[in-house]
């Protein structure tokens, strides 16, 4: 992640590698058959990309996505490793702890299959795999959860609120055009570039997260003003004049001042580590109390 320092990132990668090794059952480091495996066709890679959709089918706290990850690789691995000993070694390697972003995983799958085909040492494949998990998780969060989803949802919502079914349709089409474009594109790119993709990834991670963060934070600023609703309904009587707090006090300072202030307050709590559940509870209480006393 571009948000972390190099040192923090390499420390994280080391932790992940340890975690993978702890769950390892392997005592060998090489494949028996050292001749390069069969070349994978475009269809094989597409099949892998389709299977990558089930990455989290068997998600659990012990190995996280390991079994789903192996599910994605299975048909291609069988094509590469014709003898059962090697297939078993490879499968055991890929049953080790694994966790990355569910959208960008097809990229790592492509790279790993290229390495499997050239029968790299198992420890090298593991190291590359683990080294890619973290950075891709970071880019994926920035790109999908923080940028693409809020933008598509905001578009869909503004149409749906007016009662138009175009809203949900637009949301689905936009989101999945990017989603499937990247999932299939990156699968092929990963396989064709092989381990060369790593240096490309390293080079582009920083720039990419940086760009996604610029777009993401610009949009979040806009979303706060558009979608957080907070209005004072209280009216203060001063002598004969009655002053509406919202229209006469807050609006002249800046429109959407209260939503911004409120979001910054929640941001402060989130940063302090208050659990989202407590915050939800607090907001409901605040809404009810505000409504009861007629201020909100």
């Amino acid at each position, binding site marked *: 992640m571009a948000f972390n320092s190099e040192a923090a990132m390499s420390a994280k990668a080391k932790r992940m590698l340890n975690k993978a090794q702890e769950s390892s059952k392997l005592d060998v480091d090489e494949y028996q058959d050292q001749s390069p495996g069969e070349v994978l066709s475009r269809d094989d890679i597409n099949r892998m990309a389709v299977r990558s959709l089930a990455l989290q089918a068997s998600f659990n706290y012990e190995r996280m996505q390991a079994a789903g990850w192996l599910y994605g690789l299975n048909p291609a691995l069988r094509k590469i490793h014709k003898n059962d000993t090697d297939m078993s070694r490879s499968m055991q390697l890929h049953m080790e702890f694994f966790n990355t972003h569910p959208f960008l995983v097809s990229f790592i799958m492509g790279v790993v299959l290229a390495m499997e085909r050239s029968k790299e040492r198992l420890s090298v494949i593991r190291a590359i795999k683990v080294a890619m998990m973290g950075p891709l998780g970071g880019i994926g969060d*920035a790109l999908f959860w923080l940028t693409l989803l809020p933008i598509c949802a905001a578009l869909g919502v503004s149409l749906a609120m007016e009662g138009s079914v175009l809203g949900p349709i637009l949301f689905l089409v936009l989101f999945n055009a990017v989603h499937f474009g990247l999932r299939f594109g990156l699968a092929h790119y990963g396989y064709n570039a092989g381990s060369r993709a790593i240096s490309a990834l390293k080079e582009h991670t920083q720039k990419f997260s940086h760009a996604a963060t610029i777009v993401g*934070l610009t949009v979040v600023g806009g979303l706060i003003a558009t979608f*957080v609703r907070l209005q004072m309904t209280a009216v203060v009587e001063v002598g004969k004049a009655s002053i509406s707090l919202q229209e006469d006090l807050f609006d002249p300072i800046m429109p959407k001042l209260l939503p911004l202030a409120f*979001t910054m307050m*929640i941001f402060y709590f989130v940063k302090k580590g208050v659990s989202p559940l407590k915050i*939800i509870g607090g907001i409901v209480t605040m809404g009810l109390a505000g409504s009861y006393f007629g201020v909100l």
Partner: protein
Amino acid sequence: MLFEALMIAILAGVAGVDLFNGLTHIHRPIITGPIVGLILGDLEMGLITGASLELVWMGMAPLAGAQPPNVVIGGIIGVAFAILTQAEPQAAIGVAVPFAVAVQGLITLLFTAMSPMMHRCDELAEKADWKGIDKINYLAIGVLFSFYFILAFLPIYFGAEQAKVVVEVAPQWVMNGLGVAGGLMPAIGFAMLMKIMFKQNYIPYFIAGFLAAAYLELPVIAIALVGIAIAMADYFKSQQTVTQATVQAGDVNDGI
């Protein structure tokens, strides 16, 4: 009611699978809302309630893998109850959030319960039985489907009548208060997004985005496009610096 409850439960099962697998995002309230609306015969209410719940969950994504309150059950149950009790769209949040939070807890249990299965997978891997691994994954998808199917069916089939009574009895200020809370919920999602992105050097973009919406009242798509334009300008500028640096380095190395 049985038929409708079953249809909604199937929708919940499919959406629940999509939340972790497929990720086409048909599981978001903006999609499940109108579908529940169609099933219960009020498309427009489903659309609008779904859209309001979408806002509540906007930004509540599984960042770094942490599970937020469950968007599938929250969205589906929220919309279903809003239509069944003929409450206002905003009141849906009062039903959606408690359910979503409860299911979030159950998901944790499910992920724990799936752990022992990994040892079965280890045995299969040792035997190079890749079809066996495939089957375990299909089975797990089946478990996910059933999990959501049951969690949506039970409250709708058995709870709709009671919920109607509760909503009729509830005073206006409670409904109004839930509406206010619903309007504030998106702030949680945005705050969580900011927790990751809000670094000093990005603050100007945040301010620009806010002002564009608050004063200029630009739609979100326009703000996103402006953001993309800024990001592109920034990228080209950094490319330029890199090229200059390479040119300088090249001069030393024989000017290649």
